[in-house]
């Protein structure tokens, strides 16, 4: 009776293992059933990519979080191993889907067509269905997420309280994939908000000194913006004519089905008129954009990001910068741009200005930062501005650039944050200038820092360069000499990155100057796990830098189809 928990402590390992087994069994049992969509094909998305990580992580969390501290410590090593193994499953599946190992997938789709699509009835009364699918826009992001989760787990292997930390990362990954695969506005929004919760906990429980403020700011800021977006979505919902059939509400007669809405909007837009008329397009465009701009984040809605990043644990930062920011860009391309192309054309310059301001402001502010992680966070703001420029360029090339930027930044920025995390972890200081000559003590860390910094400042043959080059190409014909500003940013980016390296890993004389926070101890180099994690990231940065066509082929097909399907001739 006096026990503080309903479940007896002793049987918990069994429950844990049992729960996992049950979830795996569920996966296997439902596969032929739940797993088959209308055409009898196997559903590779719903359970394997989305459900599995969330459910397994949820079960592990539910059990691990009930334990007291010492038992959690004991549990953490089997749990994180399990988490790591489980996180490899989605990665294997998404990789296999790309290489057609499981089934032949046609990624060369026309606009508003999706591969591996499946739809199940869910909330029929208001026209919500569980509708998932992938196309050239979402698949790279899905792969990126499946890739980053195991890498993040590996990199932050030694994070304290691993029994709950690593499952949270896995859960976050599942929710993020959910965002990218959902083809139903309601489902999309559900996952969109669901991603906040694991992140909130990651910051709150594993964060730095100001984690209380940062976690709340992160949550509230993005939540505020997304409710405005939700209002836009609901308004849109009632503007699509009633219909019947799968996905249409039995009570409202409308549908939240993204595919149906997109095809209706495209038909209207490509016809004589304008979908909903210009006035309404503009309003809805900005309502949706607001949610995505904050998530992106674009200046002036960016201030949550540095706070969140600086306080977040390394793994949280890696996923936050790697995938979560891209949700904004993804959403923009998926919804407002696709639905309201005329509004985009009308506000092309505004989108460009926001992008440009983010780009320039982010990089200039970077130069004034003294905290390594804060600097990297602002550099993310700057890089995300590039995506807006791509969208504003109104060219498939620009869209490809934006997509590739999302992808490349998704590989590079986790590395940057992993480096920052290692600084924090091993030197207990992220103040630029508080140390000198760290390359002497931590050659590996110095190498990864150098590599990540160089990749981020757009060194050719590393992933970041392709997108920057393409964005400049797409930008010039539309905006001409404004290109000097992105050019200026290229130089400033190099300046703050090099300057920060000069004042951390370089200099210091023959003895080196460890930070005061080391209290006179010799700083260690990074651990094996960090090393492996960053090495994997580095390898992929190089691979996608030298062979960008691996990802760009799919993206290019998508953007071509997108332009054919969305924009009217002579529209610009």
């Amino acid at each position: 009776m006096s026990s503080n928990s309903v479940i007896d402590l002793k049987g918990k390992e069994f429950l844990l293992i049992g729960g996992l087994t049950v979830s795996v069994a569920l996966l296997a049992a439902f596969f032929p059933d739940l797993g088959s969509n209308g055409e009898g094909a196997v559903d590779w998305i719903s359970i394997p990519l989305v459900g599995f990580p969330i459910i397994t992580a949820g079960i592990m969390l539910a059990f691990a979080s009930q334990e007291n501290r010492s038992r959690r410590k004991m549990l953490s090593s089997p749990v994180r191993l399990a988490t790591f193994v489980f996180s490899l499953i989605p990665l294997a599946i998404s990789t296999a889907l790309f290489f057609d190992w499981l089934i032949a997938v046609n990624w060369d789709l026309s606009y508003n067509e999706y591969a591996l699509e499946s739809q199940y009835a869910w909330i029929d009364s208001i026209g919500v269905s569980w509708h998932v699918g992938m196309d050239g826009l979402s698949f790279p992001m899905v792969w990126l997420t499946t890739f980053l989760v195991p890498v993040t787990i590996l990199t932050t292997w030694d994070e304290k309280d691993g029994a709950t930390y690593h499952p949270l990362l896995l859960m976050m990954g599942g929710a993020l994939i959910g965002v990218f695969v959902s083809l139903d506005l309601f489902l999309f929004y559900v996952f969109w908000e669901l991603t906040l919760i694991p992140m909130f906990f990651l910051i709150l429980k594993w964060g730095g000194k100001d984690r209380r403020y940062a976690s709340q700011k992160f949550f509230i800021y993005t939540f505020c913006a997304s409710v405005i977006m939700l209002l836009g979505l609901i308004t849109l919902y009632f503007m699509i004519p009633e219909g019947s059939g799968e996905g249409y509400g039995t009570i409202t007669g409308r549908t939240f089905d993204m595919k149906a809405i997109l095809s209706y909007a495209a038909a209207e837009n490509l016809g004589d008129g304008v979908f909903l008329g210009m006035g309404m397009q503009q309003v809805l465009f900005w309502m949706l954009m607001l949610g995505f701009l904050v998530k992106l984040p674009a200046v002036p809605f960016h201030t949550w990001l540095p706070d969140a990043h600086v306080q977040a644990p390394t793994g949280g930062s890696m996923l936050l910068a790697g995938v979560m920011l891209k949700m904004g860009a993804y959403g923009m391309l998926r919804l407002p741009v696709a639905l309201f192309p005329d509004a985009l054309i009308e506000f092309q310059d505004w989108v460009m200005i926001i992008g440009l301001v983010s780009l320039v402001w982010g990089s200039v502010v970077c130069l004034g930062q003294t905290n390594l992680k804060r600097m990297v966070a602002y550099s993310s703001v700057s890089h995300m501005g590039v995506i807006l420029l791509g969208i504003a360029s109104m060219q498939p090339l620009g869209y490809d650039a934006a997509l590739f930027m999302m992808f490349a930044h998704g590989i590079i920025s986790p590395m940057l944050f992993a480096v920052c995390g290692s600084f924090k972890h091993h030197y207990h200081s992220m103040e630029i200038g508080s140390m000198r000559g760290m390359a002497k003590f931590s050659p590996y860390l110095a190498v990864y820092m150098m590599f990540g910094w160089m990749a981020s400042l757009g060194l050719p043959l590393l992933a970041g360069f392709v997108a920057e080059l393409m964005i400049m190409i797409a930008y010039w014909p539309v905006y001409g000499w404004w290109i000097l500003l992105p050019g200026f940013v290229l130089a400033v980016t190099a300046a703050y990155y090099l300057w920060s390296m000069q004042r951390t890993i370089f200099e210091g004389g023959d003895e080196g100057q460890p930070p005061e926070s080391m209290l006179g101890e010799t700083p260690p180099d990074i651990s094996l796990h960090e090393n492996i994690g960053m090495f994997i990231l580095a390898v992929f940065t190089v691979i996608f830098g030298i062979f960008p066509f691996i990802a760009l082929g799919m993206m290019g097909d998508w953007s071509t189809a997108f332009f054919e399907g969305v924009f009217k001739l002579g529209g610009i």
Partner: protein
Amino acid sequence: MSGSGIIEYAVLIPLMPILAFPVILFLGKMFNGTPSWVKNVKEGGLIALTVMGAVLILSILLIKENLHHGSADHIFNWLTSSWWDSDTGAIQKKVFGVGIYIDHLTVMLLFVASFLCFLINVFSIGYMNTDPINDNRNHRFYAEFVLFCSGMLGMVLADSFLWLFIFWEIMGLCSYLLIGFYYERPSAAYAAKKAFLTTRVGDVFLVIGLVMLWNLFDGHLDYSYVFNPENIQAVDQGALQIALGMMFVGAVGKSAQFPLHVWLPDAMEGPTPVSALIHAATMVNAGLYLVARMFPFFAEAELGALSDVAIIIAIIGGITAVMAALIAFVQMDLKKVLAYSTMSQLAYIFTGLGSALWLANNGYDDLAKFAMGASLFHLFNHAMAKGMLFMASGSVIHEMHHAHHEVAHHDDHDDDHFDAQSMENMGGLASRMPITATAMLVGSMSIIGIPFIGGFWSKEGIISSAWQVALKEPIFIFPALLILIGAGMTGFYMSRMWFMTFAGKPKTEVAEHVHEQTPWIPIPLVTLTFMTLFAIVLAFMHSGHWLGDFDNGHYTSDLVHGAADEMHHVFANDDPFLLLLTYVAIGLSLVLGPSLAMALYGGRLDEGQKAKPWIQWAINLSSKVRRSSHFDNSAWAESSFAKSLHKRLHFDDWYDAAMMKIVVGFANLSALFDSKIIDGAIKGIESSSQGASRKIRLLTTGSARDYIMMAALGTLAIFLMLWGVA
């Protein structure tokens, strides 16, 4: 031009070093300190050398096949995207390919690059591996070294401006890494950053230029498309001119020309092989290569449409030539003199290229090809000579270090601030380092343009070409005059360097103990000495003709006729103006400059010291000149101009001030603004809502009477509103 034969393997030339990069890095990390790794593999040096040897062989095979006509090979499509025409709705595929493009320009630079990379690799094994300061980090040097070679070779072989830029940036990275090789020295870390940032400024413009070019040429950056005369004539010539001007800014940065020259002298913080390879012989030539690559645009564009760019190129060259030479007058650091000399000589080539481009654009095709040939020949000569000079200076510095250690060891000299690179500590080394002294002498003569030796042939060509243009375009008189003056100045500072180092009596005890003893080092010095002297053969082979026309140029193997032609052309030109010019130039560079230097810095060696006979004459001559002239330059040395020369004409100060005060100051302000105003607004909303919350909760007074009163007031309000609506 489609690929067949050896060109199919050309891709290996940049690929092998780039693959060697991780291999050396990881092996080095693994076997660091293992005796066999140090002794048998030279800490990775031999791996690099093997690779570079293979590259050299492959390059020579490739060169052999392409001596007469170029060829090209498409390897794969790097990335594909599309462009949407909003009027027709047509979506056009845009392909960025990867390929190899070889013409005479490529061939020449490929040789320069692979040859020098190989030789400097040999030199490095001698230089780096015997320096205790480099223990356990030479693998890093060799890894970065091969990566750099890959960048240089790749840039030369690339078949489009895009890939040129990509490899260009890789070289930039390696330059950064290698300058900062001794990262623990603040000066090296600073210099590395400065080099990267300064070139980055140029690169930004280069990118913009490329983007403009891409747009002009309908989504193409590959040479085979953009050099097509029809395509060139089809584009807006004004826009093309701006694009080329933008690209030129990139070249200015990379080749350390005014006003982006400040990084090169500081780059000497890197190990000497790096200075030799990157900052003298290869990477700094990238800018020249880029400008030379633009030649077809000028040749095929509308007459005179692009001449403004050509003039700007020449003027920048002229200014830099004189400015760098001036600063070189006062430098005491051996390597810095060479650095300024590099800047100055590169500036010559720029002026030559400017002239060539102007001539090409204004329809003087033959003159243009001559000028282009001369410029590129000078590039060749300069690369060989300067590479050698740097290696020789490295040899001097290295031996000075050794000697310093010896001396300090014997005498308990606790002199940590001894500067092994300062010429004030040298002197009289001619007898103690015969090979080095010889190499340096030949190299200096080549750079000065002493008749018949190396650079003379090309330098004359550049000066005469510049004056040729000046006759047609008055504004060109300015650069032409500058480089003519510069010729004399070159004569002065190169001689000054040589005499201060090798002639006279040793100025310090250390200099007395110097011996030439390190293995590996002499090999490249000797090779390059012969290479420099060999330039006369190349000149007689009319390599200018061959170089000046990238695809169809030809050379002659009939040396006798070639020699006659060349001698006639140079020393007995039919054009009296050019003839006069030649002799003025020779007079300045051969007589005026060196004699001034001799008068100031010449002198006999120590008693009993005897230099090799082919050096001794110069020493004897200098002591004679000095004794006979009694030239006193102290007034000049005290002048404020000299002081500002010591301060490198204040450019560095101004740039640093601009960077630290304006840019960083602005950035700090921005950061403050960001956290106080933008984020402050968010925080303000929060705190004001908290305040509102407190106020609104104060209305809940706790007294039920107030509650009832509020309810009554609410009732009243409801009445009023209902009333109003009804």
